[in-house]
């Protein structure tokens, strides 16, 4: 039986060191839910609290309204897949998968049928009598997945399961995991620091930083309408500009520090005249302009990446936020009419419907309909 998970005011401390100050989240039944964040953000800590390997200092976690804080890990009926696979090296593939069923005293016939089926689903039937050390990383992870799912857990927890695999296998396993999860229909909490993995695999993503969830939303929303500057720069790349809100007869506009003004019709009510804001523009949200109206800059470097061309840009210092790793503009190779040269002076026009505007401290979005928590 799959469950929904509620986390209410969850706190994690190691002595005086607060890892998770106060976390609230609702994970829906059958959902593929990803915790995404830089290392040390508390995502694995939270996952291990759900699993029962980390204690919960305050607040509660419940499965279908049953609080599980005090239920020991082995009675929570969870399936867990580890970064290191954690396949028992002294058992064959089949024995590994049977392990949890034997503990549950499942009758022989049923056990055989269930193991056969799951080995089929994860496509490792032909290796079932091998010892795990003779399997590749990808095959081992399939065993781990089968072993976790075969017990029909209430929830499947995955802790960076693909980070030890090479790039090609990672993409392959990604879709395998997604397929199996949908096939079984089990609530899944997935931890990763790889944003591409998170975007491609999840129903919803929770972006975490310093123990706090910055935004929970579908991959599309996370990318197109990030709730704050952290999310907009952590997921994908965003170029950040200083600007001021100006309200006049034609409507509301953001005015950049060089006077370039952009009319916006999708700001929310908080945007008031004279307000200082941060404008986040992704490299692909610029268009090359031949006139004079737009942001002036110089190409300082160029990298050809096949499908697209990436340019590094130089702006006036007053225009941009300090300490950005780079300012970038991306041209789609298939549509680029003019290939730019290093040191070329160019003018770029942001696409109004795509860009995001945040409060000056970067803490929240000023876009219409942007939410921190999307159901």
């Amino acid at each position, binding site marked *: 039986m799959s469950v929904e998970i509620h986390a209410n005011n969850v706190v994690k401390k190691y002595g005086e060191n607060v890892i998770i100050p106060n976390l609230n989240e609702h994970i829906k039944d059958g959902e593929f839910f990803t915790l995404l964040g830089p290392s040390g953000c508390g995502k694995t800590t939270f996952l291990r609290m759900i699993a029962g390997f980390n204690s919960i200092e305050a607040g509660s976690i419940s499965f279908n309204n049953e609080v599980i804080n005090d239920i*020991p890990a*082995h009675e929570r009926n969870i399936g867990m897949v*580890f970064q290191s*696979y954690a396949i028992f090296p*002294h058992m064959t593939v089949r024995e590994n998968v049977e392990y949890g069923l034997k503990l549950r005293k499942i009758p022989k016939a049923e056990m055989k049928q269930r193991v056969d089926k799951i080995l089929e689903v994860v496509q490792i039937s032909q290796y079932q009598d091998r010892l795990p050390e003779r399997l590749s990383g990808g095959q081992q992870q399939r065993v781990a997945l089968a072993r976790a799912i075969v017990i029909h857990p209430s929830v499947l927890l995955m802790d960076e399961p693909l980070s030890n695999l090479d790039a090609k296998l990672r993409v392959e396993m990604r879709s395998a995991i997604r397929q199996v999860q949908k096939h079984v229909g089990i609530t899944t909490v997935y931890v990763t620091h790889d944003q591409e993995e998170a975007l491609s695999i999840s129903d919803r993503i929770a972006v975490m930083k310093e123990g706090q969830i910055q935004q929970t939303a579908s991959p599309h929303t996370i990318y197109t309408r990030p709730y704050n500057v952290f999310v907009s720069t952590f997921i994908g790349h965003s170029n950040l500009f200083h600007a001021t809100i100006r309200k006049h007869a034609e409507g509301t506009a953001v005015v950049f520090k060089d006077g370039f003004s952009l009319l916006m019709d999708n700001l929310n009510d908080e945007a008031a005249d004279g307000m200082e804001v941060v404008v986040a523009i992704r490299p692909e949200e610029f268009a090359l302009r031949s006139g004079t109206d737009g942001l002036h800059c110089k190409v300082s470097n160029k990298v050809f990446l096949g499908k697209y061309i990436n340019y590094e840009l130089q702006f006036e210092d007053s225009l941009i936020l300090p300490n950005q790793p780079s300012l970038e503009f991306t041209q789609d190779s298939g549509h680029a009419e003019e290939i730019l040269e290093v040191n070329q002076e160019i003018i770029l026009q942001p696409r109004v419907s795509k860009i995001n505007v945040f409060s000056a401290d970067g803490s929240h979005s000023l876009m219409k309909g942007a939410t921190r928590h999307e159901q």
Partner: protein
Amino acid sequence: MSSSFHWDFWKSITLLSIIVFGLFLVYPLFSLFVSAFQDPDTQEWTFDHFTRFFTRKYYYRTIYNSFSVTTCVTILAIIIGTALAYFMSLYTIKFKAAVEICIVISLLSPPFIGAYSWILIAGRNGIVTKYLADLGINFPSIYGFAGILIVLTLKLYPFIYLYVSGAMKKIDCALIEAAESLGCSGIKKVVTVVIPLITPTILAGALMVFMNAMADFGTPMLIGEGFNVLPVMVYSEFISEVGDQANFAAAIAAIMVIITSTIFMIQKFIVERRSFTMSSLRPIPVTQLHGIKNVIMHACIYLVVLLSMIPQIVVIYTSFLNTNDSIFLPGFSLTSYRNMLDSLGGAITNTYVYSTLAMVAIIFLGMTIAYLTTRKKSWLTNIIDTLSMFPYIIPGSVLGITLLLAFNEGPLVLSGTAVIIIIAMVIRRLPYTLRSSSAILYQLSPSLEEASISLGASPLKTFFKITAIMMLPGVMSGAILSWITAINELSASIILYTGGTKTMSVAIYTEVIRARYGTAAALSTILTLSTVIVMMIFFKISGKRNVTL
């Protein structure tokens, strides 16, 4: 429910290990120090024993003697062991496997067998001495400093060899190639790259040699004669009939413990400051030497190994000589073995029973304590971890005395029982198993245990179904070494034994003292044979041909 039970299990293991170490290590050590400062008659506090030790040359010279012989042994062992390891790892050696097995055998055999057979060879009535005397040549005396030096060096250089050849395997070939590419070659390469890389390892091995040489009792007792060293002094003062000697012996023992722990701390301090880990992707390839160099190298290696095997060969040879109790008669016979079985069958049974019981206790304690100290870290388990290192620095004879002083009277009387000998074996040899178990636990990812728990096994069930099974190979190899060293244990048992609880090594010692060399040789042969057989099992289980102590 089961969660509270697993907590209870580990709690009781914590309690058990505290009891074991507290009762049989801390408390006896404490009573040793107490009696070192006590007047035997009035029980008043006194410094007299220490004053007496440090004012009489007869006593304080033993410190100088111990240090001089131990230091010389350590230096010689470092030179021989390192050179041997260097050449054995880098060049093709004929019969390398046999050579390595011989080296390990000479390490694991009881030390006094070496002393005893060197007496048979070069002692006053030794084979070589007599032969040379017939030719009118006066052979220099083997007794005293020289004898101890020869016997202990030949017995202890394998420590350095095993440590260093382990380290040589971990030197990545790329490091050597990097040195060469920077224009460094030949002897300069060895001095600037290879030696510094293995220095921490040499120091670790040197500590083992130093501690063993310092604590060794059998060798100086048999071959030292007038050359008194600390363990012999402790023993003879303790055993002597004069009433007040126990306190004086305790004082000498306390001095020994202070010396060994100081050395231990210094070594630890040096090693920790300059330790690094090496892992080799590509070990240095073995090359073939040619011509005269190759001949000289082989000759040197075989000579060293032959010298260290001589005691075993002599002992086995002697055991088959025809004998009339104390005099060897012409021809060969099994008389010695018959005599041995008649009078000392009990000692053989005792040895196997005690060491096997000790091994069972060692396996259980080793596994559970290793788990406690690596996986359930707390201030309490840290204390247990520190305590478990103590036996390294307590010489066997000192441990024997401390146990005897502590359990001779009052609520728990164990002296004269088999239990006290088994306890001494467990305490002395537990560290080997503990270390190999912890090493394997550090390599086991905790995710394996978590995986089992997540699949529904309680933590306790997980320990027995997953953790213990995966620890077993490492634990077994440690336990086998513990067993081998336990059957060869002399310095604690010699103090703790009584007529009925005599072990083989004690029996060999007493037979040698009574000049019944035949039975002593027969017993030694049995002991060596047991060691070799069990070592073969060890190699089979661990799948490698070296040991780490």
